[in-house]
């Protein structure tokens, strides 16, 4: 009896759950191995955000006097830089999917006895870990340059939840674009729109209240704006100034939950879209 048929002969629900969890971890392991052997995929997305945290934030604080509020500008931009590092990291991860397709490696995975959406989820797991490490590096660099952080248990929870959901959204977006485009050049061409443009609208370097009304309204519709407000609420701004700028309500906890719901909604919708687009692109119809 073959190993496969033996596995199929085990009590089905338990065996199936175990096999599928194992398959998902195997896909994540493959992506992690490939990523670890391409160090530029880890280092390149970090360069810009690291320079923001190390050089730009302290320099701008010194030149402009900061935000003129209780929030330290170095840490404000340090957290804002996460709004660049996560999208860049996810876009690079999306590029790997395109490479898999062009080198043919994806064909072997599509022939495996696993649901095809696992390929999206396996890659997403690694993108989450990588983005988390990169975010820790950016925050660490900001702290080294004098950024002030007020870290509490609840704050860490808000920070992690926002970072996690925003990474899910960004990776799903990158995966969707990777499934739709045929050439790597087209994907690279989409990078500024996917990863850099939102950074300028979402209040990464300044509060969105500093923008004209129309631009602020656009910013409020973007998941990055909500994610950044939550990240700052978690680590540097317990009063929730960024959340007030979005919602204008009196209860900061309600505002935080609302922003988290917005990011979660974007993450869930984009994940569904990416799974659907990938699954359709995997089968020739």
């Amino acid at each position: 009896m073959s190993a496969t048929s033996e596995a199929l002969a085990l009590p089905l629900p338990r065996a199936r759950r175990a096999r599928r969890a194992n398959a998902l971890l195997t896909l994540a392991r493959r992506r992690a191995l490939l990523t670890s052997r391409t160090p530029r995929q880890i280092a390149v997305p970090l360069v810009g955000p690291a320079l923001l945290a190390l050089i730009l934030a302290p320099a701008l604080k010194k030149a402009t006097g900061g935000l003129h509020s209780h929030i330290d500008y170095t840490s404000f931009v340090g957290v804002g830089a996460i709004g660049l590092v996560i999208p860049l990291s996810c876009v690079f991860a999306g590029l790997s999917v395109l490479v898999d397709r062009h080198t043919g490696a994806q064909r072997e995975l599509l022939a495996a006895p696993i649901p095809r959406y696992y390929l999206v989820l396996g890659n997403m797991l690694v993108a989450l870990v990588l983005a988390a490490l990169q975010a820790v590096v950016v925050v660490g660099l900001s702290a080294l340059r004098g950024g002030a952080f007020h870290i509490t248990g609840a704050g860490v929870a808000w920070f992690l939840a926002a970072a996690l959901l925003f990474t899910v959204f960004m990776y799903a977006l990158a995966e969707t674009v990777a499934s739709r485009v045929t050439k790597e050049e087209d994907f690279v061409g989409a990078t500024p729109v996917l990863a850099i443009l939102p950074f300028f609208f979402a209040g990464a370097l300044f509060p969105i209240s500093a923008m004209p009304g129309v631009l602020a309204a656009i910013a409020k519709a973007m998941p990055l704006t909500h994610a950044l407000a939550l990240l700052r609420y978690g680590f540097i701004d317990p009063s929730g100034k960024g959340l007030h700028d979005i919602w204008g309500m009196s209860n900061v906890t309600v505002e935080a939950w609302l922003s988290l719901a917005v990011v979660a909604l974007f993450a869930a919708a984009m994940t569904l879209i990416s799974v659907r687009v990938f699954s359709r692109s995997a089968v020739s119809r």
Partner: protein
Amino acid sequence: MTSIEVRGLRKTYPGGVEAVKGIDFDVEHGEVFGLLGPNGAGKSTTIGMLTTTVAPTGGSARLGGYDVATQPLQARSVSSVVFQESVVDGALSGRENLELHARLWGVESERARRRIEELTQALGVAELIDRKVDSYSGGQRRRLEIARALVSRPQVLFLDEPTVGLDPRIRHELLDVIAELRARDAVTILVTTHYLDEAQRLADRVAIVHHGEFVALDRPQALLAGLGEQILEFRVEGGVEAALQSLRARGLAGDDAFGLGARVTIPLHGRAAAEALRAIEGERLRASELQVRAPTLDDVYIQLTGTCFGEHA
């Protein structure tokens, strides 16, 4: 026991291109079945439908009893594919590639370790298994891919043009390896190829595919037997059809004689070669390059389709 069961399988791509036009065949357990045809004949689309990466537009197919359309996971669990192009992860070692396949196919780790050991020895890649695949030659990669496909002990192994792009020496070595594995593991193999000698050497039965249809399906020997033991082939000036008509009218060629380009082929069916040559020479056909030889599957293909592989490939 039937490992592959295909009924009325059909694929029409958007835009109306009919790649596969309703094919039927069964492959028994342990049999090697060849799909023979030039590029564009529909072989890879057929493999795509059987491996669930191409959605059929009609008909059905079962692998190990599992319907590829309604039970794709089960169908994929009993099969493995060696693709036409190399699809290994070059940045990983050979062992890592094999282990990943084993895990995805649900092979328990100790069993996978033993199987990898056994297969890498059998396929002659044991010494390079811990090297990055990027450093492998084309032939070594192909051997690794065959080892990878067999790690999960599939009931059905698809080999899609397994020797394309390999130099002749490695190609022949690989065919030997496939034949040995087949003898040892009794795995059912569906192999697509446009090399006629490959089909003749490997396959128990061959389906000749032309424009998405089977024009013949039989044992290679049976297909060749239709042309007899010897054929007379020559080049003619002034039109093949006119030459064939003249030869048929004088009883020198039967209905199974055929021509392509400037070349006429006449199955001798036991007739003495010297007698046939004399008759042709007396026909004032301006024939040249006359030769008597044993028929090949190429002749069978030309006779059945009126074209040769080179016209498509």
